[in-house]
């Protein structure tokens, strides 16, 4: 194709130069060089590049006629250029440059379009290139590469440093750090060791790992993600639907107006007893045909969305379709589930209010005295202690049900429990202003302070709520099944606008429904949950966002937007990405339409010739495509 374009361009220039010297404007007076080459030599000469560049279009146009398809762009290009040649013959101007040039630019445009599309498709697919190509199976001491499709569940596969984990599984041997950025967009490495679950798509960074597969390749995380991303741009947005509808009427409309332009003004002129100047009007009509292809629009809109979806998935935000990307950009209400979304969903020591002994000692005593218990509170104390627990230091452990524990640690009497326990032994305790579960401690028969255990707020939650506000979200609402005082504390801490506590899962659905009903219709409501027991709410909201979905199939199924890790900051980021993408979409729509209509108008009035028309057509497309690719760049948002 490129060769054809070059040959045509060269021939066109040579012939134009020749014509400049050896032709005359009206075919009669002498030319600039004195020699005159007459018709039909020029026609034949110019037809050579015309056919070189346009034969396939003429062929397609002919086929189109056979299939009775008049509004096919090939057909229109053929009519426009043949018409231009015909006018040149009638005018005896021998100026065939225009017809050839229009064909030439049209083809350049087509070439650029397919190049740009292919290139951006490739770029985006590379971004999402997390598909593993092989799995290593050890056979007789040697590693054999097999296709991941062929690995049955329960096979032990080996992953060497630098390789992708092809299939989900559990580590049976070795330890290593994993790069999960392909899944989460975060490049924080994750340490794994024996009996840890690992997900496909992660890259093994340091040591050799042996894992026993727990899923087939098709069911593995990486396949699920790829499937989701690949099918995502099939859910078309309203803008895309608008464009395809527009494209369907645009071409026929332009053609019909071209026909009107060719016929009506000359007839009116005839009635006014003026020269009809058919040639001029037909020429203007042909100019219309050149602009009749809606390609710039039709190509750039899906390309923008595709780039936006691709960019988002690179950041660990999977959006299930352009329609959701579009809805996301109109998000004005964000409803959160508390546990697991804004908070970590695990109990942790949140505060230590110590009295006489220092903080670490207090936790040490608490952890040691609770070492025999598997209650979540005890576990969180042991976790906060962080060191190996030496059980020989503890004796005389007594669990007093509903109160707490008393024990001897290093021979010192320790009591750890609630207010009742303190009352029971007559210790004077101070009640705490913090919400959560309070473990009061008495050491050596003296009140030593208390430890607050609660579900910790994620470190980024506050910033996330603020970021949402900054990106134009009107209202943030928190729903929780927790008690009022806990909910209130979290809500106030995070500056959430509104909260509803003590809700059962079914109440959450009706609450969301209530909010949806009370909000303006064009404002979208997004519900953010962890996908564990809020699938119905995810489905009911305009946009369901599931977070921390790595490995959770249910969440991936139920949600419209899937955040691969559990960082709430990604919600605002997703909204910003969608805004940028939609911005580009609107820019392209407006830009392409304005230029096209301006050209149609100028063409009709005779200010724009076919050259301008083809430049408008091809140029607009190139700019629109380049603009669309911008949507891919979302790193800094």
């Amino acid at each position, binding site marked *: 194709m490129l060769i054809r374009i070059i040959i045509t361009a060269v021939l066109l220039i040579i012939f134009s130069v020749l014509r400049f010297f050896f032709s005359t404007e009206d075919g009669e007076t002498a030319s600039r060089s004195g020699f005159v080459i007459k018709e039909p030599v020029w026609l034949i000469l110019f037809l050579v590049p015309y056919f070189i560049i346009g034969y396939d279009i003429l062929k397609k146009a002919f086929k189109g006629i056979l*299939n009775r398809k008049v509004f096919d762009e090939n057909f229109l290009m053929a009519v426009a250029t043949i018409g231009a040649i015909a006018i040149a013959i009638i005018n005896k101007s021998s100026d065939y440059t225009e017809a050839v040039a229009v064909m030439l630019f049209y083809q350049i445009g087509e070439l650029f379009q397919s190049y740009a599309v292919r290139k951006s498709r490739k770029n985006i697919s590379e971004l999402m290139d997390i598909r593993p190509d092989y799995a290593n199976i050890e056979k007789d001491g040697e590693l054999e590469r097999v296709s991941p499709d062929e690995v049955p569940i329960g096979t032990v596969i080996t992953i060497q440093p630098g390789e992708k984990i092809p299939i989900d599984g559990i580590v049976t041997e070795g330890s290593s750090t994993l790069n999960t950025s392909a899944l989460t967009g975060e490049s924080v490495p994750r340490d794994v060791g024996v009996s840890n679950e690992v997900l496909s798509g992660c890259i093994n960074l340091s040591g050799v790992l042996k894992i026993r597969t727990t899923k087939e390749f098709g069911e593995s995380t990486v396949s699920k993600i790829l499937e989701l991303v690949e099918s995502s*741009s099939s859910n078309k947005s309203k803008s895309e639907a608008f464009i*395809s509808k527009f494209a369907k009427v645009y071409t026929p409309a332009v053609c019909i107006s071209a026909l009107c332009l060719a016929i009506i003004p000359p007839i009116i002129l005839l009635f006014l007893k003026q020269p009809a100047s058919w040639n001029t009007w037909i020429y203007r009509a042909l100019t219309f045909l050149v602009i009749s292809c809606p390609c710039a629009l039709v190509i750039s809109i*899906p390309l923008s969305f595709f780039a936006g979806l691709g960019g988002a998935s690179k950041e660990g935000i999977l959006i299930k379709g352009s329609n959701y990307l579009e809805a996301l950009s109109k998000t004005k209400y964000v409803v959160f589930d508390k546990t697991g979304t804004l908070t970590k969903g695990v109990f942790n020591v949140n505060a230590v209010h110590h009295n006489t002994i220092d903080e670490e000692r207090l936790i040490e005593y608490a952890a040691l005295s609770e070492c025999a218990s598997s209650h979540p509170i005890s576990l969180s104390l042991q976790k906060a202690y962080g060191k190996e627990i030496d059980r020989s230091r503890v004796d005389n452990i007594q669990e007093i049900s509903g109160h707490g524990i008393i024990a001897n640690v290093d021979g010192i009497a320790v009591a750890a429990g609630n207010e009742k326990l303190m009352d029971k032994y007559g210790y004077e305790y101070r009640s705490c202003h913090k919400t959560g579960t309070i473990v009061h401690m008495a050491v050596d028969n003296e009140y030593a302070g208390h430890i607050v255990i609660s579900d910790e707020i994620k470190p980024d939650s506050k910033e996330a709520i603020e970021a949402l506000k900054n990106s134009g979200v009107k209202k943030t609402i928190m729903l929780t099944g927790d008690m009022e005082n806990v909910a209130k504390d979290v809500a106030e801490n995070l500056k959430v606008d509104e909260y509803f506590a003590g809700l059962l899962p079914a109440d959450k659905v009706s609450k969301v429904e209530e909010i949806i009903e009370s909000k303006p219709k064009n404002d979208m409501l997004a519900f953010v949950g962890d996908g564990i027991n809020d699938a119905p709410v995810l489905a009911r909201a305009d946009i369901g966002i599931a977070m921390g979905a790595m490995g959770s199939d249910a969440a991936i199924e139920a949600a419209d937007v899937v955040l691969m890790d559990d960082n709430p900051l990604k919600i605002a980021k997703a909204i910003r990405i969608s805004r940028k993408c939609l911005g580009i979409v609107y820019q392209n729509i407006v830009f392409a339409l304005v230029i096209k209509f301006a050209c149609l108008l100028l063409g009709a009035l005779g200010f724009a010739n076919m050259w301008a028309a083809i430049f408008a057509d091809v140029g607009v497309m190139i700019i629109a495509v380049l603009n669309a690719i911008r949507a891919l760049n979302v790193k800094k948002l």
Partner: protein
Amino acid sequence: MKKTYNIEVDCANCANLMEDATNKTDGIKTATVNFMTQKMTVEFEEGSDEKKVMKQVLKNCKKVEDDCEIEF
């Protein structure tokens, strides 16, 4: 029954036309053509012969866009 096929089509508008043509084919419930991923997702009507329908789809698509290709 839902199936996805790889397709080859060069211009975005042609992809739209192909989608139209496919949707009008007998035995097809709904079809979406995705120009960007060069894929066609087709939902067949109950009890229709997939191969036969796809042959007709290709034929209809060829009518609107001579250059297109569907792998099935």
